[in-house]
């Protein structure tokens, strides 16, 4: 064995400066960590914008910001939260976790992965540089023409930023799809993939086919603004409604792009903390695929009041989406039913997600009713709905995922007591901030206006909403403190702290750069459960045993065959054991 040179890098590798290592890394775990950190910083920034908005709206009248500043505030708040927080955060978690869950050494295209990441901070820089050139974009995150045809250079920078972030997402989507289809562990058929992987796959397909459409629209807008074209200008024969079509053809799949990864996270967590397999695995997969497919058929439900779309078609398909979403709720409830629940922090946030996302989902079904939609178009009802799915949905899902995978990523366990504080502040704050908006919307309060009439009840509801927004902001403090004190502690987290089912827990915490020395056999969607409860009596301790061998990575007697070695590629053609497509054999 001494003659084998499967891992020549181990001897020739010279340590590099810390900063150089992070700037040039192509390791999916480092890139994932950078995505998560960057996204969280933008979350804080977007949150500050939200606080200014809510402070302004606390009472009627114009107190802190003038109307133009306010327009920029809600535009940058929305764009930041969607494109610079939720999307990079989900991409970051998927970047870290998906290759581990499919038992791969890295993503399919590691350098393109690095490129995708570095486009994100530069996209953010472009967006915020609007403030340096006389005012950021002010046409809302939807950038409706003809409003977006006017305005200063801030809107051009907004366009450039979205095109860059879109490219980043498309390249990321290609990478995830290739990774999931080509890099799965032997035995991991499609119907044995962890549910987070399934949701990332469907999300990536949505990204791949929806982002380029809005990119074409953004290009048209840019050409209109700068080269005298008239795509959205009726005086030249153009049509402003066209913008709404290209925008929402992306914009509605985008909604599922934001929420499907959160579904995936919650569906990883609920079975583990119920000590049961997922109830209805196949139904869940089909529901996820159905949501993805239906996502492309409903874009014009954002445009009911334009009078330019066929209402029954889009209304019907919008209702139809409630079916697969409802199936998912049954999956979660059925998994918890008679399970041995343990309410640790990831489960706590997942339960919060399930409870509150239900409200957001039901709001959506209301909006599918055409006459009702006519009544609440552009009111705070819509603001309430989208915040119930994005804050109560995506944000709760993200925190559930962060608490769940923090020990894997850092080797340290977050404090449970602080998590409980954070959860209740966030839970109450979210409801306090966004529930009153339902009532305001029904009462006719229009969104995106700096001021409102002191109608009976409006002031009180708005004031409540502002208190809720500050509670959400305060809820971040225990989390930051939690992360701060935990990172100062030694790495004591076990490899598999939650007694979980999927492959990411079969390696050390944090994993070595090559992820796995050896993979357990994959014979179901819960390979680690199979490993711990093998029929041959080798109970428990199977995973710690694996850990003890991987940690001594200095000079193991038999150097493990590194997955990235080219020789592996040459030989695995003959292995023929990976049997994908054998879904029928999974049980």
């Amino acid at each position, binding site marked *: 064995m001494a003659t084998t040179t499967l891992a020549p890098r181990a001897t020739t590798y010279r340590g590099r400066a810390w900063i150089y290592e992070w700037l040039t890394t192509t390791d999916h775990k480092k890139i994932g960590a950078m995505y998560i950190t960057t996204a969280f910083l933008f979350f804080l920034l977007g949150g500050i914008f939200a606080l200014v908005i809510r402070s302004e709206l606390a009472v009627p009248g114009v107190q802190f910001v003038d109307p133009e500043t306010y327009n920029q505030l809600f535009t940058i708040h929305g764009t930041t939260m969607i494109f610079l927080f939720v999307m990079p955060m989900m991409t970051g978690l998927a970047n870290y976790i998906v290759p581990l869950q499919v038992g791969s050494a890295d993503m399919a295209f590691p350098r393109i992965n690095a490129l995708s990441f570095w486009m994100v901070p530069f996209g953010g820089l472009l967006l915020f540089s609007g403030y340096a050139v006389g005012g950021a974009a002010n046409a809302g995150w939807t950038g409706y023409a003809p409003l977006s045809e006017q305005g200063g250079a801030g809107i051009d920078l907004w366009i450039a930023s979205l095109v860059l972030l879109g490219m980043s997402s498309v390249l990321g*989507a290609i990478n995830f799809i290739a990774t999931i289809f080509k890099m799965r562990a032997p035995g991991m058929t499609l119907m044995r993939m962890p549910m987070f992987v399934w949701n990332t796959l469907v999300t990536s397909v949505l990204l791949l086919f929806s982002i380029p459409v809005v990119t*074409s629209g953004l290009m048209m807008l840019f050409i209109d603004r700068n080269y005298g*074209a008239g795509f959205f200008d009726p005086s030249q024969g*153009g049509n402003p409604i066209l913008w709404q079509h290209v925008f929402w053809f992306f914009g509605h799949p985008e909604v599922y792009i934001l929420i499907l990864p959160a579904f995936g996270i919650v569906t990883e967590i609920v079975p583990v903390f119920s000590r049961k397999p997922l109830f209805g695995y196949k139904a869940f997969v089909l529901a996820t695929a159905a949501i993805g497919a239906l996502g492309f058929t409903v874009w014009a439900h954002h445009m009911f009041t334009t009078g330019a779309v066929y209402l029954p078609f889009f209304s019907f398909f919008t209702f139809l989406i409630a079916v697969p979403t409802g199936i998912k709720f049954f999956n979660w409830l059925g998994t918890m039913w008679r399970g041995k629940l343990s309410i640790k922090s990831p489960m706590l946030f997942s339960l919060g997600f399930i409870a509150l996302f239900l409200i957001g989902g039901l709001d959506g079904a209301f909006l599918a009713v055409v006459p009702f939609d006519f009544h609440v178009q552009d009111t705070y009802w819509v603001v309430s709905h989208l915040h119930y799915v994005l804050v109560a949905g995506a944000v709760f899902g993200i925190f559930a995922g962060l608490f769940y995978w923090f020990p894997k990523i850092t080797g340290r366990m977050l404090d449970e007591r602080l998590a409980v504080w954070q959860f209740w502040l966030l839970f109450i704050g979210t409801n306090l901030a966004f529930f009153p908006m339902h009532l305001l919307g029904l009462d006719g309060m229009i969104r995106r206006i700096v001021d409102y009439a002191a109608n009976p009840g409006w002031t009180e509801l708005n004031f409540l909403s502002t208190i809720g927004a500050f509670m959400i902001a305060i809820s971040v403090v225990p989390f930051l403190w939690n992360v701060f004190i935990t990172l100062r502690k030694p790495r004591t987290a076990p490899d598999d702290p939650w007694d979980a089912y999927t492959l990411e827990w079969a390696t050390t915490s944090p994993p070595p750069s090559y992820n796995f020395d050896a993979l357990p056999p994959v014979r179901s969607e819960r390979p680690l459960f199979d490993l711990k409860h093998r029929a041959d009596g080798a109970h428990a301790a199977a995973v710690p045993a694996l850990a003890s*061998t991987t940690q001594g990575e200095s000079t193991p007697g038999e150097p493990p065959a590194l997955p990235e070695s080219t020789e592996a590629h040459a030989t*695995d053609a003959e292995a023929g054991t990976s049997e994908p497509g054998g879904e029928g054999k999974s049980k």
Partner: protein
Amino acid sequence: MNLPQVEQDDPGGHISHGVNTALLGMLLFIGSEVMFFAGLFGAYFNTRAAAQAMGQPWPPEGLQDVIEPTLVPITATVILVLSSVVMQWGVWRIRKGDRTGMNRALLLTLIMGIVFLSLQVYDYLTLVTEDGFGINSGIYGSLFYTMTGFHGAHVFGGVVGITVVLLRGLTGQFSAKHHIAVEAVSVYWHFVDIVWIGLFFTLYFLK
């Protein structure tokens, strides 16, 4: 290590059959590009339908016969379609291990791509100077120049790609077994060709 080793000789766990990973990446990328052009085509047909619904002529008044299938666009189209054939010939050569034949085919494809771009520039200049038809000549000009312009940008991207694989071929890279970059660039080139056929029939004949 007492972990059960089911696949001793498959350490990476990669799935090695089916389409090559890099080629899959290119195919997915082309999928996204299809949607980009779908957005532009959607804009064209949306605008056209809106004009016709209001009883206005399409193309708009005064621009009825600006875009005609004259000698220059037809020549350009024939050259681009043929270049796809030449490209495929190059792929077939390298699949047989004939690198010299591939290099010749790549060089010819490259020249044909550059000729196409030159003819497009010539066509643009003629339209602007003789017909006064620019990107700001109403929605019709916006659509024509944006659609053909983005296609031209993609042809340019293909030309860059062909240049790269040609240079690699000239330095002795690629063999019958290892030439995935050539395959990927050729698929991209065919895609660019097919988009042009769609654009040509839409803009010059269907209108």
